[in-house]
Each structure stands twice: as C-alpha cells, then as structure tokens.
C-alpha cells in the first residue's frame, strides 16, 4: 500500500553552515499540509538560538515583520513559561540559547498549512525539544502564522549567531 507521508526534500549537515533550507527549488506545491522533521541540530556558538523563516515564491526567506507566534515552554528544572511575539521578523525554533557541549542538540516536528494558498496566511505548528545552555531539558509547544497572503515554498533554519555543525531537516508532504 502506498503511504501518505511523502519525502520532498532533505538536508543533512556535514560541515558548518549558517542556514539549512528545505523546499525552495525542490518545493512540491501539490500538498495542502506539510511536515518538517528536525533531528539533532547542533551549533558551534554558545548561547545561540536556532530560528526559522519561511521562503517566498522566489525561494528567498521572508524577513519582514509579519510573524506572529505563541508557545508554551516546558522545562524539566523550572516552572513552565509562555512565549509570544507579534510582528516579528522570525520565529525561534529553540526558546533559550543552546551550547556546544555533547548532547546539546535540538529536534522537533513542524506542520505547515496553507503554504500554497495565495489568498490565505501561512500557518504552522511547532513542537521542539532540546537541552539548553545549563544542560537542563527544555522544549516548546506552539504555533504561529506568517501574515502574508502569498505562496511560501519552504523553511530556512538559521542561527542567531554562528553555524550549524550537525543534524538534519526533512520536508514531507501529506498526501490525500
């Protein structure tokens, strides 16, 4: 039986890179919903955050102040927090800065909605887990929107400063 989770694009970090992009030239516009699997991202600069932006129809990351997002921040060693921002230029895939020691990686799952609908905003959900700079477990559960009624063709993972040194990002389409 054919499955319904279809791999579209994959990027595996094999050397230091400032950004990881899935979609873009490899974007397949035949799906209503997409899933992004993020696994074991590591960075080379202490205290920095992996961030996300979406790609416009020309495959460039959208940097305008049109991201609204909200999340619950789960912590193993402290009270949980809330995070939210309106009219941001990006979203944080990791809430607090990571560091470079062994085991300090970030993983998670995103779902993307309406990315091919030029008449509606692009929405997403995100769930993420990492060990932050203190070594404690932390993660977030939330969602957001890019308030542009336009097609968007993928995700760019950046870092607030520095590079990614490992990990992978895979883009899937959810077939009807």
């Amino acid at each position: 039986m054919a499955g319904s989770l279809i791999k579209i694009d994959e990027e595996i970090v094999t050397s230091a890179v400032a950004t990881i992009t899935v979609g873009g030239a490899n974007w397949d516009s035949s799906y209503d919903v997409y899933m992004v699997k993020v696994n074991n991202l590591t960075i080379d600069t202490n205290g920095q955050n992996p961030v996300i932006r979406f790609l416009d129809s020309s495959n460039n990351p959208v940097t305008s102040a049109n991201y609204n997002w909200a999340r619950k921040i789960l912590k193993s060693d402290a009270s949980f927090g809330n995070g939210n921002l309106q009219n941001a230029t990006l979203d944080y895939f990791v809430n607090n800065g990571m560091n470079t020691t062994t085991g300090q990686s970030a993983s998670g799952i995103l779902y993307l909605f309406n990315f091919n609908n030029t008449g509606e905003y692009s929405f997403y959900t995100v769930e993420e887990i990492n060990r932050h700079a203190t070594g404690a477990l932390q993660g977030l559960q939330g969602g957001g929107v890019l308030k542009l009624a336009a097609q968007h063709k993928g995700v760019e993972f950046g870092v607030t400063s520095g590079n990614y040194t490992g990990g992978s990002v895979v883009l899937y389409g959810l077939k009807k």
Partner: protein
Amino acid sequence: MAGNLEFIKSASGTSVSTLEVTDCFSDKYDVYAFAITKVDATSDGNIDLRFIDSGGSVISDAEYDYALLSLISYAGFGETKGTNGTKIENIMRVDTDTEKNGGSIHYIFNPYDSSSYTFYLGQSGGAVASSGLIGTKAIGVHKSAEQITGFQFLAGSYDTLTVNVYGVK
C-alpha cells in the same frame, strides 16, 4: 509512491502491569513515532516510559529528565517535571472506565545512535475524569549516549494496552 511513515511493529498486552516493545529501533530510521491506540486500565493513573538498551535490559537508572503540560478542561493547566528521574513520567493519563480512555502520539529521536542522547516528544488526549478531559503535551530525554533498541510502558495495571510503532524515513 511509497510513503515515508513506515509501520514497524505492533505490541499489545492483556492483564499486564508493564509492556515491553523490543527491537523496534534500528539504523534504518533516525526518528520514530508510536501511537497508543487502545488502553483499558484497572486503576486510574498514568503510563510512564522507560527505554530498553542494546542488551535488552530496561534502563531504570536516574538518567531521565522530563516535563509535561496537562491541559485540563475543568481546571487550570498542570505542570509535571523532573530531573534525574528513573523514567519519563505521565506520557498518558488512563482511567478505569473504558469509554474515558483516548489515544496518543509520540516521537522518539535518535534512539539507535550510540553517540547521541535519546529525546522524546508526545501528546495525548483522554482520561476523561469525572469532571472532564485531560490532555498532555510532553518532552523527555534519556541523557546517556547509548544505543536504545526498544521501550517499556510501566506504572499501571491494564486490561488491554496496544501500541503501534512507525519509522519516519
């Protein structure tokens, strides 16, 4: 076209207090999903999670950190958390009344990679107590870099417990 969510195995138990799902992780996938599709409990409580090492032993060392948000329909939301625990607690609430138990979906990251910690994400809906619904959003980590080949559910008493495991290729 073949899909990239691939069924690996199903495991179930009847009249059990634990359920081991063995040899479900391999080098074929880096991320796994498992769904608890059926649970009937003989006592109200929570399903907890432990991992199984490459020797087939359940890991009960104090190597787990976890955090869980309970989304409750009849009261304020709850927080459960811990560091250096011997298990990841409360991945799903269960109830003795059959009709009150729901389902859940969970992800495991890098279990088979002996150089990486094993991370966990999960969410559940169910355990409708006398007053209403309790759902969960949870995270966890087994903070020892070792190869994990399976997992165990514990801390309950179940008439029926069924889980399906998938690889996300």
